[in-house]
């Protein structure tokens, strides 16, 4: 596997979306390529920051109420 092939798998590696075979090839490449290894670590950190820092809103009670009423009217 070369760097271009590894980059194509980078996001899937971060998200545990690689097939076993892809995973094997990817890991082998990272062991011999510090550039891709660093990039992989950075991509992991980016995901981590997003997960941790993006704020989540709660649906307003009026919306929840209207959806529940919608439910009832459909039964």
């Amino acid at each position: 596997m070369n760097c271009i092939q590894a980059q194509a798998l980078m996001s899937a590696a971060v998200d545990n979306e690689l097939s076993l075979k892809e995973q094997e090839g990817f890991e082998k490449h990272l062991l011999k390529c510090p550039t891709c290894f660093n990039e992989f670590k950075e991509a992991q950190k980016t995901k981590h920051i997003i997960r941790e820092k993006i704020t989540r809103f709660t649906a307003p009670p009026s919306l929840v109420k209207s959806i529940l009423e919608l439910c009832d009217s459909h039964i």
Partner: protein
Amino acid sequence: MSSSSDNKNAPEKKSILSEKDKIKQKEFQEEAIEHINALYNYALHLTMNPSDAHDLVQETYLKAYKFFSSFEKGTNCKAWLFKILKNNYINKFRKNAREPGKVDYDLIKDFYHSIKDSQSESEDLNAGYLRSLMHDEVYQAMNSLPEEFKEVIQLCDIEGFTYEEIANMVESPIGTVRSRLYRGRKILRSKLTEFASKYGYNTENEEPGEQ
């Protein structure tokens, strides 16, 4: 003046659903309502406007209830609702849609303002969240991403969908989802470098030595 009282009982709406269907519908509704916060957040990020987000979520449920029979139990209800919401959004806002890749800072600013305005009306919009959002560098970095990158990062990192689900939602092959995530995170990373060092996220790859 008419002496006869007109007993205008609304005609009992005859249900065309069988008992089995009713049970299925009830099950679906119970499952669907669990995803309301996720849908609201997604709608908020798409529309940048609480009132539009409210409408979008409402329309999504209306549509979902209408087509509940096409929903299969055990399949991903959340992904299905997101897909409906996204389609609704496209149909509704396509005319005014921003060009992908262009950042409308006025829109983002408006978003913050409208969120701020609705704060007093909706006790549920957590005040602490809002304050942090106004100055949130991560949030702003996310919002400055081209739409197609922002979307996949939202669906993957925030909502936790699988690549297959995302591919289905954005109607692109999985390979495209992979590459958008790769490129999106790369852009985000450069925007967040400063943030990361400021708030102690280690951006160096070598762990600091123990001694």
